[in-house]
């Protein structure tokens, strides 16, 4: 191995790893107006964006941490030590031969395609996806679909972008949406014209660009009247990761009769704070479905929501969260009913392993003047090992007598006797645990696209292997 090997840190249990990095553009540590000017200058942004960012910074600074309801662990984030903008990656000098065999094996086991492995290993600064991306882009652009990075979208399509940007999730929604609004970069912009049904899922994979990916992503997806689109976000490979704070904002707009499905499978390394705001507006007869799988991270706080603004709009959230030793998954869903005959469905499954902790927070809101609204919420928790912890905080405000709400919650355990039984059939302890977990999420994952449920299954296996001493 060459000298790079000495700069490499590997968590052999999980396959997370990182190299020393250097970047062409680096806003330095800490956040102030100067940071924002630096970002705007590097990106060549218009003044309205600069103003938008600076206003957001004030809001961010003015808002307290939400520790009156959320975990105190948030106080451990030191905003003055974070790098808010990095791009122009210089790490491409690394050689594939320098990547340790363990990491290569992990990629092998996860079934990551060859060309993507090099990117994920940090060998190539730019994931060699240009070809795949332009094919997809070309295919969909025939129908007038816009699919690009949000930075590009902001420049090239301000007339669409500005109309919806920050409207679903206003800057001041919460402290982290304000943070994102001040320093966002990366993320996707998608516009699907009326009546266009995009047949293949659009994947974030295809548009990863030179911008440092993921840290403060801003995604905006608009499906115009009667349009349909599925978007897949995330990456199930162990992450090449130096950033410890990820705070994305994702806004979806489903115009009348439109359908949007947004799928996330994320596998964060265990030092990451993953604080994400995701919300959709569903107009008349529109359907928005969030499928959200969270594995890893130190703390994830994420409550995908749908504002059911038009009559007969429907919102769905299906989520799976796995909290391993030392991790806290604080996830849930928000369904804001704002029109008659709107329906929503929330199915949440959480798994806590060891001292891993999972929390479900759900909000269902139906005001008094509405009629014929329905919500169904199911949250199931699975505990593996007795010191795991799970909490459920449903906040249901339902007024009016013609609305219907149903809430079910269950907690089950994988007992030592179950593990013994499975081991007696020849499964290792880790295999037994991952089989139980996969059984627990099975009825949900069956509804996922095939490739995602297969990847999720593999991820759970890897995660369980890591959790057995």
């Amino acid at each position, binding site marked *: 191995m060459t000298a790079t090997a000495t700069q490499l840190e590997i968590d052999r249990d999980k396959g997370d790893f990182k190299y020393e990095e250097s970047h062409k553009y680096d806003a330095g540590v800490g956040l102030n107006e100067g940071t924002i000017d630096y970002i705007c200058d590097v990106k060549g942004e218009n003044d309205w964006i600069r103003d938008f960012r600076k206003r957001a910074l004030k809001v961010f600074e003015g808002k307290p941490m939400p520790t009156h309801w959320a975990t105190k662990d948030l106080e451990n984030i030191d905003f003055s030590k974070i790098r808010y903008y990095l791009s122009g990656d210089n790490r491409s000098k690394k050689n594939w031969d320098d990547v340790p065999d363990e990491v290569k094996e992990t990629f092998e086991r996860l079934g990551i395609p060859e060309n993507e492995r090099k990117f994920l290993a940090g060998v190539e600064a730019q994931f060699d996806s240009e070809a795949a991306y332009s094919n997809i882009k070309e295919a969909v652009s025939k129908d007038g679909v816009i699919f690009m990075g949000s930075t590009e979208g902001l420049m090239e399509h301000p007339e669409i972008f500005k109309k919806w940007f920050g409207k679903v999730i206003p800057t001041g929604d919460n402290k982290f949406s304000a943070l994102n609004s001040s320093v966002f970069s990366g993320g996707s912009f998608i516009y699907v014209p009326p009546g266009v049904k995009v047949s293949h899922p659009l994947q974030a994979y295809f548009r990863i660009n030179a911008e440092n990916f993921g840290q403060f992503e801003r995604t905006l997806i608009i499906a115009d009247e009667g349009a349909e689109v599925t978007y897949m976000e995330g990456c199930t490979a162990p992450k090449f990761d130096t950033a410890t704070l990820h705070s994305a904002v994702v806004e979806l707009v489903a115009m009348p009769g439109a359908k949007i499905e947004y799928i996330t499978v994320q596998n964060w390394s265990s030092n990451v704070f993953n604080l994400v705001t995701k919300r959709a507006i569903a107009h008349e007869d529109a359907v928005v479905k969030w499928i959200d799988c969270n594995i890893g991270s130190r703390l994830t706080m994420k409550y995908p929501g749908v504002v059911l603004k038009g009559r007969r709009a429907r919102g769905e959230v299906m989520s799976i969260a796995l909290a391993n030793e030392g991790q806290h998954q604080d996830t849930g869903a928000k369904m804001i009913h704002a029109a008659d005959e709107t329906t929503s469905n929330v199915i949440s499954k959480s798994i806590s392993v060891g001292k891993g902790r999972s929390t479900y927070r759900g909000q269902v809101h139906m005001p008094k003047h509405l009629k014929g609204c329905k919500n169904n919420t199911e949250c199931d928790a699975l505990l593996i090992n007795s010191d795991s912890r799970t909490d459920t905080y449903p906040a249901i405000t339902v007024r009016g007598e013609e609305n219907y709400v149903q809430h079910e919650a269950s907690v089950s355990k994988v007992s*030592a006797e179950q593990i013994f039984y499975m081991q007696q059939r020849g499964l290792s302890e880790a295999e037994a645990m991952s089989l139980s977990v996969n059984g627990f999420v099975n009825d949900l994952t069956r509804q996922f696209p095939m490739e995602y449920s297969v990847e999720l299954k593999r991820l759970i296996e890897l995660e369980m292997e890591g959790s057995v001493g």
Partner: protein
Amino acid sequence: MSQSLEITNLNVNIGDKRIIKDFNLTIPKGEVHAIMGPNGTGKSTLAKALAGHPDYEITSGEVLMDGESILDLEVDERSRAGLFLAFQYPMEIPGVTIANFIRAAKNARLPDGEDLNAPAYYKELYEKMDALKIDRKFTSRSVNEGFSGGEKKRCEILQMAMLEPKYAVLDETDSGLDIDALKIVSEGVNALRGGNLGALVITHYQRLLNYIIPDQVHVMYDGRIVKSGDKSLAEELERKGYDWIKEITETAA
């Protein structure tokens, strides 16, 4: 190398309590042995200790499977080495179908990176289910979830048939079964009998042994075998009751 499951001077504790006491038994491959005894005498403890349950501490003694000690092996390693335990109370595994469970267990027996051939697997599974008179629809049900007592026991026998162990311990397989279920389960066990399997059938009642005719019967009392004989011993025991065993044990002591 001796083709047998050989238990020598085995002592097993649960917590501080000694349950199995200087226990000796050899089951040659190809034979079916039965252990009978009153409740609380250590029959199930023996079964679980052999399988390697972590709550059962083996304080001394030896267990050899075809000449190799299994005591240093993990639970799953003992299974893969060829030891099968049919549980008295099989556990439920919600969301995991029987087909997937048995498949995972068979996959665990393959070298790393190799995967079971799916069509061949299902062919074998269906053949064995037919032989055991188990409805094929069964494969898509979650393991033991909502099963009747009889279904659970048949599911155990199906797993045994699919995993083809060298030695099997059947722990009170007859408990909770009506006479029809008992017949079907016994037929299953009898179908698996032969030169490649050594079996230890643990039971409280003699009636199971009307269907599974043992080569030898052992009577267990207070953690050890106190009397052995052929199948007529089971009948004698049924006639005289367990008090007879108590008497002869105490007289001997």
